[in-house]
């Protein structure tokens, strides 16, 4: 079974992890540290907090915003990326602007967003989109620009129209790069949802964690961090699995597996 094989391969890592957790538990119990409650307390608080209506109150809105923003940004980024990558003049025109947006720390858009859109879900989704769209757009563009000339020539040779070429040749060719952008975008979506909830929100996981810190509810803060960690790990794994399914041909072609 896959799980037993995973355990067997990683036994020393799991052992070290286990030892670290035990060490934490023992030290925390002994020192009664305010800042690092025992693991057992964290776990029990985790259960208490997230297996309760609080999940609905905070986790669901966070996830909802993140997905809405991510999917919107993906659609926008990929479509625009295909166009920008295929039409050289468009790319040249937008290049400085794109470079600037890529380099700007996107959290800075939050104060602007709050001014224009208030502190609602719209603001957060818009901000997530305005951060996530850049890596997706840029990678999609790059992917579209790197289609081999032979493939483009083949398509032209067989009389394919411009749009058809983009759909049937450019887009599949660019998929590896698109997925690279999507992966980065996922990380950005996470970050933006958390930060936007820390700065301007009344609910959400980010809000919850920061609020717990402000009210010195330390175990609750850790419970929130742990939830984020699990969600982050979970989505990342899901994404990698999805990518390996869609890009099986690319892995086969290049003879390598994603790290």
């Amino acid at each position, binding site marked *: 079974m896959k799980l037993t094989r995973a355990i067997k391969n*990683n036994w*020393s*890592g*799991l052992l*070290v*992890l286990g030892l670290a957790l035990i060490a934490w538990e023992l030290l925390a119990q002994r020192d009664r540290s305010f800042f690092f409650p025992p693991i057992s307390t964290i776990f029990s608080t985790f259960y208490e907090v997230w297996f309760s209506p609080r999940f609905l109150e905070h986790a669901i809105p966070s996830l909802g915003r993140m997905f809405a923003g991510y999917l919107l940004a993906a659609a926008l980024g990929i479509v625009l990326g295909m166009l920008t990558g295929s039409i050289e*003049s468009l790319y*040249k*025109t937008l*290049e*400085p*602007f794109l*470079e*600037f947006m*890529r*380099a*700007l*720390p*996107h*959290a*800075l*858009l*939050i*104060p602007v967003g*709050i*001014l*224009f859109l208030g502190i609602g879900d719209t603001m957060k989704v818009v901000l997530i989109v305005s951060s996530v769209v850049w890596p997706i757009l*840029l*990678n999609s563009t*790059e992917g579209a620009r790197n289609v081999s000339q032979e493939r483009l020539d083949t398509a032209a040779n067989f009389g394919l129209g411009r749009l058809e070429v983009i759909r049937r040749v450019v887009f599949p060719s660019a998929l590896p*790069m698109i997925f*690279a*952008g999507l*992966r*980065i975008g996922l*990380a950005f979506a*996470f*970050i933006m949802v*958390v*930060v936007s909830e*820390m700065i301007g929100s009344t609910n959400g996981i*980010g809000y919850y*964690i*920061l609020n*717990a*810190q402000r009210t*010195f509810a*330390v175990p609750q*803060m*850790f419970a*929130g*961090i742990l939830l*984020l*960690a699990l969600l*982050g*790990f979970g*989505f*990342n794994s899901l994404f990698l699995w999805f990518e390996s399914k869609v890009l099986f041909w690319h892995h086969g072609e*290049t003879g390598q597996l994603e*790290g």
Partner: protein
Amino acid sequence: MGKAGREFNVRGWAFVVVITGVVELVARFGDSPAYLPPPTTILGALFSGLVSGEIAGQAGITLLSYTGSVIVATFLGVFVGILMGAFSTFYNAIKVIVEFLRPVPTVSFLPLAILLFGLGYAMRAAVTIYAAFWPLLISTFYGVRSADPIMIETARNFGLSRRQVLRRVVLPSAVPSIATGFRISAIIALSLTITAELVAGNSGLGHFIAEMERAARYPEMYAGILLAGVIGYYLNLSFRAIEKQLLFWSPSYRSQVVEEEV
């Protein structure tokens, strides 16, 4: 993209000017809210802020803290990365922890950092170092791991000890990967320093921007954002140029994890 010394992209900058011009007209003559000041006003605020030192000082604080954090993160990341790449026992021991922590966004730990370190430099540094550590760790690890086995065999053939092989063959061949990881780390570090300042800092450019927003001094707020973007833009350009220099001899190492554009 962004190569130093490329021909000047007239069209691209013309586009920027045109958009700015449109915003200018709308902001100045249209019925626009106070929080959309004309770009010329923003530029004016930026200029006077730089001259008076108000913005410049804050930017300086950010950059100082940023630089220190990047240096520390680089040493840590490269060191642990080499350990992970070269010694499989070590790698096996910590890989579970690494794989679990790696996808967790650093901002999740921001409240913890605030709790531990308050609102000053230490908090910012801790968060930045933690965030910048990961790309360097991963890229160093990959760089070391992907050293060409034939190269290594050749070196062993010539009588080099394991340690010498590491130092003289493996590490140099890992440099391109590390360089790319460094660039990514440097960008992430800037983003995090500023984000930390924005959320809960007491100084620095991010804090300045938040302050200006609270004080409803919108031109100054935008000026700060613009400055942050410009700093990021030029840092990105410089790091890409440096990376290119370090990479010029390497065949396609880019098939690794750091292939993507961040």
